[in-house]
């Protein structure tokens, strides 16, 4: 049998139910690994060792029932943007260094109700703004496949922790690719559901019309299982969908023969790494062998996604982050001479460079005289991007494409040029703007050993078909079984 830390969520459940391992043994295996490896990876900001072990003992002694809860005894990690009652939630920012939420996010409450053990809170780009995890106030996370490279962002800590077997699975959040891109860079599965599928209550807001919570896991079945638990209507988030979620695992093993898959020609951008292009060709061949029909499609407004997103998201952020003023919570610069100075100095010392840049960009584009030229224009282009997808899905069941044009880049490589960093999100932003579901599933490795991810995108509410395609692909390849080897 593989080491306990290598097991997926569903395998862990199997091992626990068959009494092949105790919950304490599973939790201890992860805690020891975190102790051993995370000093160099920096994927966790808070580890809840005592709390997790106490919960494990309650399961093992029978005080807590293991049987009927789908996540009973399974140790999971949470991106540190999700509020956890009584547990520090920093958002990767100095300004929330000592923030202890008085309530659980709905997604967190649902994990707990379903038996999960919270192992800790994971590192991230400050306020989820970033594509490399280098914007964390608590230091960058390293990619377990190559310690000189970034794990992606903004859910870099969650993706690295899953890839390095420092938890059984994790939750991340995706605003413009922040689940799919780090999953691709770290060789794990990451899924962004349809906008509104998962309640945002208790998710610290970055860009409210784009933010979505989703799973980062060791395989596709786990992603379905975890999403099933956290998805569904919540009256505390007025944007949370009432449409029923359905059984997300029911179709995983159904064959995909006869399905039509669209390959968007605009996603094969200039500057794409040839090894990523080759991995895509191989992935397409797998789908053909499984009986899918592959057709070229066009998403003509793809190239405008970066510009539209980097107006809309910072605009929403500039408004959402106005709440950090040193009054109700968060960092305050003491001994400021008056209220206004206190606001300004607290925000200036509390926020990092990228967060300030986005607040500035957003404030500018919403300010008098510029609203029509920027925010309104971007929102109109957003309509066209969404229509591209709706029209494409008239002719195909799902879309398959790369997640990122390149494998993980080096730490420091893009930090001096914010625009270059933004451009690396070119293939994940359109789906976010359109609000459709998407997954990243491992589809190969470069000659240098870096993982490459395949993106599967479905129509609104099409989580089941996305998971079905990803699972069929995963079952017929072995890319997801490779593990990083540490020095």
């Amino acid at each position: 049998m593989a080491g306990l830390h290598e097991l997926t969520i569903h395998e862990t459940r199997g091992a626990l139910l068959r009494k092949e391992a105790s919950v304490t043994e599973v939790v201890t295996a992860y805690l020891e690994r975190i102790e051993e490896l995370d000093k160099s990876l920096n994927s966790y900001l808070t580890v809840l060792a005592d709390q997790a072990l106490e919960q494990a003992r309650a399961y093992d002694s029978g005080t807590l029932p293991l049987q009927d809860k789908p996540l009973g005894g399974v140790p999971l990690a949470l991106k540190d943007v999700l509020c956890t009652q009584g547990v520090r939630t920093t958002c990767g920012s100095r300004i929330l260094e000592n923030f202890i939420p008085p309530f659980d996010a709905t997604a967190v409450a649902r994990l707990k109700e379903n038996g999960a053990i919270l192992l800790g809170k994971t590192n991230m780009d400050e306020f989820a703004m970033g594509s490399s995890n280098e914007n964390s106030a608590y230091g960058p996370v390293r990619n377990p496949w190559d310690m000189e490279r970034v794990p992606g962002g903004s859910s870099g800590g969650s993706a690295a922790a899953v890839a390095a077997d420092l938890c059984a699975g994790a939750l991340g959040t995706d605003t413009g690719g922040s689940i799919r891109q780090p999953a691709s860079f770290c060789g794990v599965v990451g899924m962004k559901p349809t906008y509104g599928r998962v309640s945002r209550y208790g998710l610290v807001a970055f860009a409210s019309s784009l933010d979505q919570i989703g799973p980062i896991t060791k395989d596709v079945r786990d992603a379905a299982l975890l999403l099933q638990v956290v998805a569904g209507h919540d009256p505390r988030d007025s944007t949370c969908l009432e449409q029923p979620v359905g059984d997300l695992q029911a179709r995983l093993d159904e064959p995909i023969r006869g399905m039509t898959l669209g390959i968007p020609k605009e996603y094969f951008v200039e500057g794409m790494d040839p090894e990523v292009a080759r991995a895509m060709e191989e992935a397409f061949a797998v789908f053909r062998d499984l009986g899918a029909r592959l057709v070229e499609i066009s998403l003509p407004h793809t190239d405008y996604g970066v510009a539209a997103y980097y107006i809309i998201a910072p605009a929403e952020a500039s408004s959402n982050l106005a709440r950090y003023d040193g009054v109700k919570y968060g960092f305050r610069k003491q001994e400021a001479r008056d209220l206004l100075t206190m606001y300004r100095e607290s925000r200036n010392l509390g926020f990092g460079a990228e967060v300030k840049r986005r607040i500035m960009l957003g404030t500018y584009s919403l300010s008098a005289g510029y609203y029509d030229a920027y925010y309104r224009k971007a929102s109109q282009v957003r309509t066209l991007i969404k229509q591209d997808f709706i029209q494409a899905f008239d002719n195909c069941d799902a879309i398959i494409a790369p997640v990122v044009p390149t494998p993980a880049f080096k730490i420091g490589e893009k930090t001096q040029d914010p625009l270059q960093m933004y451009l690396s999100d070119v293939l994940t932003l359109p789906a976010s703007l359109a609000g459709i579901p998407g997954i990243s599933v491992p589809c190969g490795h470069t000659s240098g050993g870096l993982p490459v991810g395949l993106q599967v995108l479905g129509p609104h509410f099409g989580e089941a078909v996305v998971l079905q395609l990803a699972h069929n692909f995963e079952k017929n390849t072995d890319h997801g079984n490779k593990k990083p080897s540490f020095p």
Partner: protein
Amino acid sequence: MKEKITREEVRHVADLARLDLNPDEEVQMTQQLNAILDYMEKLNEVDTSQVEPTTHAVERANVFREDVVGPSLQRDSALANAPQTDGVHFVVPKVI
């Protein structure tokens, strides 16, 4: 090429955003925002004269609930994270 945003405007926007940039930050911010805003020019290639803006990707009508009192945060919990309180209120430096 004409600057999209001048250092003067950066100072004004920082003021609106309640940020206190030092002179070095102002210079760098001006440069970076100009590079980013130049890139945004791309959007003007698209004819949007007949296009409605999208603010939410998944259409939703107004969401209402019954107007009834439910449980809410207790005062102690609401004040627990504040940098300064008197036990009943948030305390801030003098305003006038």
